[in-house]
């Protein structure tokens, strides 16, 4: 064998080895705040599905709304060599440290739906425009209650920015109408059972209410159950937020008055696509990308299905 041939064959062999090493399938971690809410299950599963379609293996981690558990997931993900994290944070401020930890380890983080209080830590943040949607919900609430009545607000997790963007968007409209009086405002942590308990307790002190504004659909369904048990469900207008399956059915059945449709499929798929583009070399991502949210009521319910629009 001539020396030139030997050199060529050796080079080819080395190139083959190198290529084989580079083809190690990328692993994507999907860390979500909770899997105790169907909306987040849908978000996580859609992200996993899209990652799979793009050729990546993935695993879903449930933080159970616990920042410490979330931190453990990040440690685990960093130690076991994941290549990207699609992340739904538990706490806007508390989760920043975890994202920075991943960034320092060279792992890009793409936030889904919930925001962290940093522009630099995450590679991108794909967020529902909750504030704008709640301005529209506030207008609908004012119209539905004819500018007067007593109402209750159930807040989500108080350390989550979505909680306040929703509350503030709603109040930026409703507070202009002195005839609308908020008789109670309490957190029910985005949780259906807790919302039912909180609503039962509020109804003891304030039996005369006309409306309930809830920071998500799970709480709206919990409030609805409490109102039904108290025999007030027919009169009190309940508004949620998310576009979850049971809320959409409930609006169809004339129970809930309205919700705001977030588009978790779009959010999850964009996050997975961002990770794919990152692997292919892209670096200039929009730091924050607000995704529009649409009001769903009996007027337009036929255009929507659970978690999105009818296709």
């Amino acid at each position, binding site marked *: 064998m001539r020396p030139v041939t030997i050199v060529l064959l050796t080079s080819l062999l080395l190139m083959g080895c190198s290529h084989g090493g580079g083809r190690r399938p990328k692993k994507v971690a999907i860390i979500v705040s909770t899997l105790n809410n169907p909306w987040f299950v849908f978000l996580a599963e859609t992200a996993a599905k899209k990652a799979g379609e793009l050729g990546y293996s993935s695993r879903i981690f449930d933080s159970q709304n616990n920042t410490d558990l979330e931190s453990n997931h990040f440690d685990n993900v960093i130690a076991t060599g994941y290549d990207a994290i699609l992340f739904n944070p538990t706490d*806007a401020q508390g989760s920043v440290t975890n994202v920075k930890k991943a960034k320092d380890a060279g792992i890009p983080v793409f936030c889904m739906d919930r*925001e962290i*209080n*940093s*522009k630099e830590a995450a590679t991108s943040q794909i*967020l529902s*425009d909750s*504030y*704008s949607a709640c*301005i*529209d919900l*506030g*207008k609908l609430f004012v119209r539905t209650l004819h500018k007067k009545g007593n109402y209750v607000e159930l807040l989500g997790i108080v350390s989550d*920015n979505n909680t*306040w*963007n929703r509350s*503030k*968007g709603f109040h*930026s*409209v409703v507070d*202009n109408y002195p005839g609308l009086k908020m008789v109670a405002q309490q957190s029910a942590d985005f949780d259906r059972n807790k919302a039912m308990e909180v609503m039962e307790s509020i109804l003891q002190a304030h039996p005369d209410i006309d409306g309930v504004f809830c920071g998500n659909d799970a709480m709206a369904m919990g409030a609805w159950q409490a109102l039904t048990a108290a025999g007030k469900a027919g009169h009190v207008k309940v508004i949620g937020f998310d576009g979850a399956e049971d809320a959409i059915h409930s609006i169809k059945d004339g129970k809930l008055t309205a919700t705001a449709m977030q588009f978790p499929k779009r959010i999850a798929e964009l996050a997975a696509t961002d990770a794919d583009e990152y692997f292919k070399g892209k670096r200039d991502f*929009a*730091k*924050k990308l*607000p*995704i*529009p*949210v*649409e009001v769903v009521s009996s007027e337009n319910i036929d255009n929507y299905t659970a978690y999105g629009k009818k296709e």
Partner: protein
Amino acid sequence: MKKWMKYTSLGVVILLAGYNSIYIRRLSEVRAAAKAGTFEAATYARHFLDVTLPAHPDKAVDLAGLSRTLTTDPARAFSESHAQNDGNNRFFLVKGSGRITRVDSEYIYLNVEGMSQPVMLATRYIIGTAARDGSGLISVDEFTTTMEMNSVSEELNKLIRTQVVPPFVRVAKAGDRVLFTGAIELQKNKAAPDSLEVTPLNLNIQ
């Protein structure tokens, strides 16, 4: 002796662990540190209304012209709109002049040259994000959190409600000719509305 050493060592360990577990800081220091990182939405809004917007007069489109384009070529009309997301609700910064036809508790109604539909200057309910988003000069990427950006919208609306509208409303009457700059919100999937509601940003009686 051994027992004595054991308990002394244990005591030292507990003291050290306790000392390093507790940090005491003055509440005033914590508050000051928190304040240093606080975004001043009111200051931002004031600067936007007084400095940023007047420095970009080209951002405002002629309302009468926009109204015509909305009917003849909606796609072109909406190409001049802005929003923080790519949804159906779009915002425009507009300017124009017109004569006051009516004044009520919520609006001042204008007849604008070149427009068939009435223009309603909002004077009571200043709500929504039109003032923030109409010009396209405020971007979400400027802010650490979306909460900061949303608080700008609230502060702008407050300034309009308390400082732009009252001096105008005090003197405005039917028949006056008004020069205005403002913001409007339109929905892409709906036909041009029968009347246009304007969130006022600058109002002058000629």
